[in-house]
């Protein structure tokens, strides 16, 4: 077991792009589920809107980078309205099925050959990230310390990404302290009570869906820019469930929950995978128990176990308050 290698691989995950875009997706989900009680299982659809907004905006429509960002945000808002208008009156489990189905519709449509000009079909799009990296004010060779050392472009992406995380966390903090946030939490606790106070429940839910969806689109921007490409199959339901697990782990209904959850969760996954990989190399784990070429799959077994164990034993996650969040949303 080479613990040096394990830490060398694991420590950078604390602040890498993956933790960052899952944190953004989870912040959006937290507004939906943690504060409003909406069981949105299609968060990846919003991320896809953001990602394809900039990719198709730059490559297909030839728009400047900034306008493409606006296009991505606009697409996410349109998706939220399309999903929300008919479905926000549905029961929670129906909303879950509709949103998950919608996100699959988006992925399957984006990878379809008939849209190859627009979305790049199954091979996706690239060559849209220059507009972003041209804005890079960092021109040095490398930045950071120790394991956390990055080249200038990666450093720029991480600075922007984590700034977005902080910005949106502050926004959520302020919003949830406002009367508007109290109405959302009221809807989560007892929709009928809020309605009887004369509040337009569906309207508030819609605003929540749009806001969380737009933050989801920013997650998609970060994802697309980090890879400098958009691949349709990266926007499958797994993405949603990873973000969902991160949110539950940190604590739904807490501002800091999704951020800490995403960081801890991604780091844990990397750690487990590296320990297993080193264990295999050192012969502690036999290849017949865990075939080496399937090591990547262990990560997802772990995701599933974490999700089950959290929901059963600690539904409030690391920071949540069990009393505040009964987790049986409508």
């Amino acid at each position: 077991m080479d613990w040096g290698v394990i830490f060398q691989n694991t420590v950078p995950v604390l602040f890498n792009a993956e933790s960052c875009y899952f944190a953004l997706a989870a912040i959006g989900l937290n507004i939906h589920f943690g504060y409003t009680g909406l069981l949105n299982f299609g968060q990846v659809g919003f991320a896809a809107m953001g990602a394809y907004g900039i990719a198709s905006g730059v490559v297909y429509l030839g728009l400047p980078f900034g306008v493409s960002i606006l296009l991505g945000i606009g697409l996410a808002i349109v998706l939220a309205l399309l999903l929300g208008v008919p479905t926000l009156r549905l029961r929670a489990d129906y909303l879950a099925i509709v949103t998950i189905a919608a996100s699959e519709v988006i992925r399957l449509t984006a990878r379809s050959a008939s849209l190859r000009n627009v979305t790049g079909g199954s091979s996706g799009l690239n060559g849209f990230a220059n507009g972003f990296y041209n804005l890079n004010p960092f021109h040095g060779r490398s930045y950071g310390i120790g394991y956390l050392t990055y080249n200038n472009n990666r450093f720029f992406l991480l600075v922007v990404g984590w700034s977005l995380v902080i910005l949106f966390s502050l926004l959520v903090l302020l919003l949830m302290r406002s009367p508007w946030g109290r109405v959302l939490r009221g809807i989560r606790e007892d929709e009928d009570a809020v309605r009887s106070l004369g509040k337009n429940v569906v309207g508030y839910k819609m605003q929540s869906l749009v806001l969380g969806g737009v933050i989801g689109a920013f997650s998609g921007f970060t994802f697309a820019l980090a890879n400098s490409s958009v691949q349709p199959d990266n926007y499958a339901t797994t993405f949603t469930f990873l973000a969902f697990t991160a949110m539950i782990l940190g604590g739904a209904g807490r501002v800091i929950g999704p951020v800490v959850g995403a960081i801890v969760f991604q780091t844990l996954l990397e750690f487990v995978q590296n320990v297993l990989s080193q264990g295999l190399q050192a012969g502690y784990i036999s290849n017949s128990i865990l075939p080496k070429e399937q090591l990547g799959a262990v990560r997802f077994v772990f995701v599933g176990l974490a999700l089950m164990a959290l929901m059963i034993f600690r539904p409030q996650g690391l920071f949540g308050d069990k009393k505040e969040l009964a987790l049986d949303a409508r």
Partner: protein
Amino acid sequence: MGLHPRPPRTLRSLAPRILVALALPLLLLLGFAPSASAQSAPPDPIGKKIIGTLLNAGEPLVDVKVTIVQGDKEIGSAKSDATGRFSIDVPAPGDYDAVIDPKTLPKGVELRSDKGDRVSVKVLDNTSFRAALFKFGEGRSGPASRLDRAPQLVIGGLQFGLVLAMASIGLSLIFGTTGLTNFAHGELVTGGALLGYVFNVKLGLNLIPATMIAVIVGGVVGYLLDKGLWGPLRRRGTGLIAGLVVSIGLSFVLRYIFLIYYGGSSRSYDQYSTQRPITFWKVGILPRDMVIVVITLVVLLLVGLALGRTRFGKATRAVADNPTLAATSGINVERVISLVWAIGTALAVLGGVFLALSQQVGYQLGQNILLLLFAAVTLGGLGTAYGALVGAVVIGLFTQLSTLFIPAELQVVGALIVLIVVLVVRPQGILGSRERVG
């Protein structure tokens, strides 16, 4: 939660609705050629090669020229043999394109891949061979052929729909009796296909006894799942949403354990995987598909009768309707639920074996149809047994017939849009009743 699933209706009151449901997709006939299958076979891994089997609707394509190119450079070429196989050596890992010479294709067969006559193949350094997947369909020969294609698609759709029905009844009954939206149901289907594979290919049993054993094992697994996981969770008072999230976690665990121990490849059963269709007036049916349809109909009829006529069926409906009332009238609710889990899982296993016969065994088999299963049960009405049957047949026909006018790769999209529309417009489904929508 206002869960009051409607007890299943009798067949008599159902008949006119089935006819309406079956007639709907028939009205949607417009033109597009259907898709056919592309398969890969894993032969001997010696050196690095790109391999594949050219099949059109199960029929091998012989003497078709395949060329491997890298950029503009030609690496090698080969003709497919009598079983449709080809194998071309490549020098090193890297990105290649496999190109088919369309002039060597038999008449009436057309390529239907994303990029026309070529598919990209990435040869990695840790694998010794890589499959090149081509999709074929019969050539479009004008608008008249749409009507010709329709009967074949109706047969295919009915068969697919019945298999979906078999797999979805468990999902529907479990929802009806416990309120759980089980996202791990797809993995029960996959597990069934894999159990069949273990008994059939690994242990060498004929597929028929292998399937029977798999179904029995499936029933035991379902029973144990309820006794070991879902029952204790119910007693802890775990909510329905929490249960739903637990089922997502379970689906990840199962799916990736399947991946670890079965691997990522698609394989066939030892028997009945290649058959020649029997042709009835232009409509070709594989003998195994006829058997599947008959078995499915018999099993579904038996399940329907059991639910409608037997004491256990009555108890199940009572539990679905009102568990507290059922318990006070002397029904052992937990026992009924455990049996529902056993039966539902056994049916999912049988559905999985049937599905794998037409789509090959793979670790994502069930996950790929999970949303179609949801579509089927919500369309028919969540929590009803016959509802799942009607919904599944409609979805099966819809996915097949929709290829007449949308690209085959989008057929699932069509079904999912139907699911969304149904949930929005009539969330109780075709056979559900209004009261249970909360």
